[in-house]
C-alpha cells in the first residue's frame, strides 16, 4: 500500500512540469524585443539585458508559484473549486495596500527611500491580502454558500479597485508615481529587479513550506468541518493559519507581479486533473506549474506586436476568464452547497 508515498503519476507530472519550467527559462532568456544573436555588440548592454530577462523570469516564476499555491489552499479551505486569490478579492486587497504604500507617503510629502520601500511594499501587500481575506472569512463563517463567497469576492474586488482608482487619480500628477500605481492594478514584471525577487522570495518560500505542512489538514477539510474536527483537526486554528499563509503568498505575488488574475484558479485545476486531490503533491506540482505558466504568459506579453508591452494581467485574464466560466458551468448544480 502507498497512501503516503510518491506515486508514479506525481513523478511523471513533476518531470513534465519541470521540463516546461526549464524550457520557459531558456526561452525567456533568449526571446524578447531585442535579439541578442549578434545584434547587441556592447558587452555591458548585453549583460544588462540578460540580467533584466533573468529577473523577469524569476519574478514571474516566483509570483506564479505563489499564486498557484495560494489557489490550491483557498480552494481546499473553502471547499470551493471556483475560489482563487483573484476571484475572492485577495489580490485586489494586496494590490490596493501596495498602491497605498506606494502613493500615500509621496502624496503626503514624506516619500520613502527606495530601500525602505522595497521592504514596506511587500509587507503592505501581505497585510492588504490579510485584511481582504479576514473580511471574507467573517461572511464565510456565517455559512455563506459557494455563490455568496464569490459574490463577496466580487464586491471586495470592485470596492478595492475603486479605492485604487482614487489613489491613481491623486497620483496622476506625478508621472512615475502614476505609472507605478497603475502597474499594481494591471500586473507585470517588466520593471522588476533581481533584488526585489530576492527580498520577496523568502516570503514565498515560507508560504510554500507552510502550505505543505498544512497539506494533510487540507485533505481532511475536503470532508467538511465536522468530519475534520472529529478527526482531531482544530478547525478554527487551521482556518486562521491557512488564511495567513494564503495572504503571505498572495501578497508576495502581488508585490512582485502586481494584480495577476486567474493563475490561482487555472493552474490548480489543470494539475488536479493530472494528480487528483491530494494536497501535498498538488501543492508542489501546482507551484512549479504556476511559475511556469506565468513565465509563459510574460513571454506572450512581451512578444505581442504592440507599441507598448501588453500588461501581464491582460494575458492571464484573457486565458483565465473562459476557464472560470467553464468551471462555473460545470459546477452550476453545486453552487448552493
Amino acid at each position: 500500500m502507498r497512501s503516503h508515498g510518491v506515486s508514479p503519476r506525481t513523478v511523471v507530472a513533476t518531470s513534465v512540469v519541470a521540463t516546461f519550467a526549464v524550457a520557459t527559462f531558456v526561452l525567456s532568456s533568449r526571446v524578447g524585443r531585442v535579439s541578442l544573436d549578434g545584434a547587441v555588440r556592447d558587452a555591458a548592454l548585453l549583460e544588462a539585458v540578460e540580467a533584466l530577462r533573468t529577473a523577469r523570469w524569476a519574478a514571474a516564476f516566483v509570483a506564479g508559484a505563489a499564486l498557484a499555491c495560494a489557489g490550491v489552499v483557498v480552494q481546499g479551505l473553502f471547499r470551493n473549486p471556483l475560489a482563487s486569490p483573484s476571484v475572492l478579492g485577495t489580490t485586489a486587497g494586496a494590490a490596493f495596500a501596495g498602491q497605498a504604500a506606494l502613493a500615500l507617503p509621496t502624496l503626503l510629502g514624506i516619500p520613502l527611500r527606495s530601500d525602505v520601500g522595497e521592504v514596506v511594499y511587500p509587507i503592505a501587500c501581505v497585510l492588504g491580502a490579510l485584511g481582504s481575506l479576514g473580511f471574507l472569512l467573517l461572511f464565510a463563517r456565517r455559512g455563506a454558500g459557494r455563490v455568496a463567497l464569490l459574490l463577496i469576492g466580487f464586491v471586495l474586488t470592485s470596492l478595492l479597485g475603486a479605492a485604487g482608482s482614487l489613489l491613481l487619480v491623486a497620483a496622476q500628477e506625478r508621472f512615475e508615481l502614476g505609472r507605478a500605481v497603475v502597474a499594481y492594478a494591471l500586473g507585470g514584471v517588466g520593471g522588476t529587479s533581481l533584488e526585489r525577487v530576492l527580498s520577496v522570495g523568502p516570503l514565498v518560500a515560507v508560504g510554500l513550506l507552510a502550505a505543505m505542512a498544512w497539506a494533510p489538514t487540507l485533505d481532511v477539510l475536503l470532508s467538511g468541518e465536522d468530519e475534520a474536527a472529529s478527526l482531531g483537526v482544530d478547525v478554527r486554528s487551521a482556518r486562521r493559519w491557512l488564511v495567513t499563509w494564503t495572504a503571505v503568498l498572495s501578497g508576495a505575488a502581488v508585490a512582485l507581479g502586481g494584480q495577476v488574475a486567474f493563475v490561482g484558479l487555472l493552474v490548480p485545476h489543470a494539475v488536479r486533473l493530472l494528480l487528483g486531490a491530494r494536497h501535498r503533491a498538488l501543492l508542489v506540482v501546482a507551484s512549479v506549474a504556476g511559475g511556469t505558466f506565468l513565465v509563459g504568459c510574460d513571454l506572450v506579453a512581451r512578444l505581442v506586436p504592440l507599441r507598448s508591452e501588453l500588461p501581464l494581467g491582460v494575458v492571464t485574464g484573457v486565458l483565465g476568464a473562459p476557464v472560470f466560466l467553464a468551471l462555473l458551468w460545470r459546477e452550476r448544480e453545486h453552487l448552493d452547497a
Partner: protein
Amino acid sequence: MREIALEARGLTVDRGERRVLDGVDVDLVRGEVHAILGPNGAGKSTLIRALLGLVTHRGSVRIEGELASRLSAQERSARVAYVPQRSELTASLSVEHVVALGRVSRSGAFGPEPHVDEVARAAMERMDVARLARRAFPTLSFGERARVLVARALATGARTLLLDEPTASLDVRHTLELLEVVRSLAAEGRAVAIVMHSLEDASRCADVATILRAGRVAHHGPAHEVISPRPVRDVYGVELLPRSALGFRLEKDS
C-alpha cells in the same frame, strides 16, 4: 464489571429559540452497542454531535473519565471516532488515503507518523475494503463508502465509536453486514453508539437502547425492553407486531 467509556450528563442544546436537546444523560459502556432511537427531529444526530463537541452545548461529557472540554481536538479524536451518515467528501481522494486520514492528528508537519500505512491497511482489511484501496472515494457505492468510513474510524485507534445512521443508504445485505461488524467491534471491547431509524435493526444489534422524543430521553434500558410494544406505542404511536412480517439473515457462506 461495566467500564464506562463515555458519560454525558444533562446535555442541552439550543438552536435559536428552540431546545433540540434537553438534559440528556447517556453512558456508553465498553463491549456494548448502544442504539440511539427516536422519531425524526427527536435530537438523535444532535446528541451525537454534542458528544463529539461539534455543537455548543450545556452539560458535561466525560471521555474515559476526563472532561471532554479539557481535551484537545487531537486527544479527543484518539479516544472517540465518528462515522457520519454520509461523508461530504466529493474530491477524488483514494480509499487508502481516506482511511489513512484517520491518523491525521498524529502526523508531523512534513510527514505522516511511522506505520500509518500498516494501520490503514489493517483497518481496510477489517472492513473488507482493501481491494478498493486505489479507487477514488466518490466512485464507490454507498455501502462501500459506509465501510470505508468505518475503516477510517477504526484507523483512529479510538475505543469509542459514534455512528450516525450508517445504514440509512444501505440495502438489506449491506445493512446486515455492517451490523455484524458493529457487533464484532463491541465484542472486541469498544463502546459503540449507533443512531438508527430501524427498530428491527436496532433489536438485532443493540445491547442497550435510548429512545429520544423532542430532545428528551423517553425510554432507556436493555434493548429488548426498550424496543417493545409499550415504549414503541408511547413514542411512535404505532403497534409493534410480535413478529416482523419479513426477516433477513446473512448467508454465512456468501
